[in-house]
């Protein structure tokens, strides 16, 4: 797929995460039971990076969970075969927590809707916020992020690829054009 532009490089991603971590820390009440929930797979990696930064800034351990939203997708009946499910691993009780959902790209909002439903089945968090590395617009549901790394206007047909060194060997965000 032809790459149209690199929007963030490794340093860009690092700076954005540092800022988001500061913003999360700034908005938490002192006694908050904060935890991060990353949406598999890259949201989980970003959540782990944010947790490390938060620990560095606040000297408080922040638990991280990984959420698979496949079983909560609203298009399950429309796909030609059911997508592979990965395990949900939330190693803490979500009830009463201040949770931040972390994902790489915010697009239609349908993944976040699924994540909220999935978390509601696990308990009753005190608050639920959303942090994303990239907001590319084109929402189909009334959903808005609380922490945004980069607002990136895109055409609907374009693809936004987030690559992270843990899974892809490189840190970058690129816009790709779909083949006609």
């Amino acid at each position, binding site marked *: 797929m032809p790459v149209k532009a690199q929007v963030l490089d490794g340093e860009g991603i690092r700076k954005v995460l540092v800022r988001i971590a500061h913003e999360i820390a700034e908005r938490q009440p002192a006694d908050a039971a904060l935890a991060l929930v990353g949406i598999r797979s890259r949201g989980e990696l970003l959540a782990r990076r944010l947790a490390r930064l938060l620990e560095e800034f606040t000297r408080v351990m922040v638990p991280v969970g990984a959420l698979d939203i496949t079983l909560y997708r609203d298009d*399950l009946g429309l796909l030609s075969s059911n997508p592979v499910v990965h395990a949900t691993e939330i190693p803490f009780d979500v009830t009463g927590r201040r949770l931040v959902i972390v994902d790489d790209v915010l697009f239609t909002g349908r993944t976040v809707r699924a994540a909220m439903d999935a978390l509601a089945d696990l308990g009753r968090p005190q608050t639920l916020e959303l942090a994303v590395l990239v907001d590319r617009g084109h929402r189909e549901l009334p959903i808005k992020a609380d922490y945004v790394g980069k607002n990136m206007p895109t055409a609907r047909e374009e693809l936004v690829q987030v690559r992270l060194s843990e899974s892809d060997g490189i840190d970058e965000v690129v816009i790709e054009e779909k083949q006609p």
Partner: protein
Amino acid sequence: MTRWTRKDLLGLEELSKEEILLLLDQARAFKEISLRPIKKVPALRGRTVALCFLEPSTRTRASFELAAKRLSADLLSFQGNSSSLVKGETVVDTARNIEAMHVDVMVLRHNTSGIPALVARSVKTSIVNAGDGSHEHPTQGLVDLYTIQEKKGRIEGLNVLIVGDVLHSRVARSDFWGLTKLGARVTLCGPPTLVPAPMEALGAKIAFRLDEALPQADVVIALRLQLERQQERYIPSFREYTKLYGIDQEKLARAKPDLIVMHPGPVNRGVELSPEVADGPQSVILDQVTNGIAVRMAALYLVAGASHSEPADLPAPQPDPAEVGT
């Protein structure tokens, strides 16, 4: 990664190694759901699963029923003795009627080998074989694979000993196919009347003496001695069978200390397993029952996904958000 494209799950013989691994991998993802306070996900919301058990069953039926409910599917139950089959309707006609009620998945148990395959060819509904005659019991085979993988960390290279009435056992056949495809060495052990010699040609080792075969085993799967077949004189007496092929603590003492003991249930206590062994620290029989739900959730989820009616009048599926980021 492999995608599941089969309409039906009829047996492990026809599956590739990759398809078996996909089923086990999905079962691993589903296991956590049964540990939640709210044991339910909406994956099969609005879908209907029919349980057609035309032969008695408690555990497999309960396991499929819970699996379907935990996926939010609606359930329809048929039993052999209360259905129109006793009035002379053929099983294919029954299946066509169930299909006409827009059921998505039919879980079928029948005492004749091959009936699920016959039904699968006759209807568009997905068929999951829950045991047919002495042919296959694929979900039980998957449960055994899953449990071995969970307890031993691997399957490849293990020595697995299947003891007892192999001749009539569909579990033994599913276990054999699954284990062989995943690289385990399978030994079948029992009296010559109950171990079919042609299975040697398929790659199984055959042993007639349990005391000689047991010490090499990493896993032993004891099969239920089918008491109802006793009058057919496959064995001289229960006492002799138990002495030669029953697993008790004395025989276990000469086996590997990390041997695990499995049984598909129901156990004839004091026949194939002594009570001390069935309840002992090496027994994983109840783990098999627990894992059964996760495995059957995986089977229903994958099969239901492949059974969708052709989405001709629906918008083209959006790209997988896991890949593009939604």
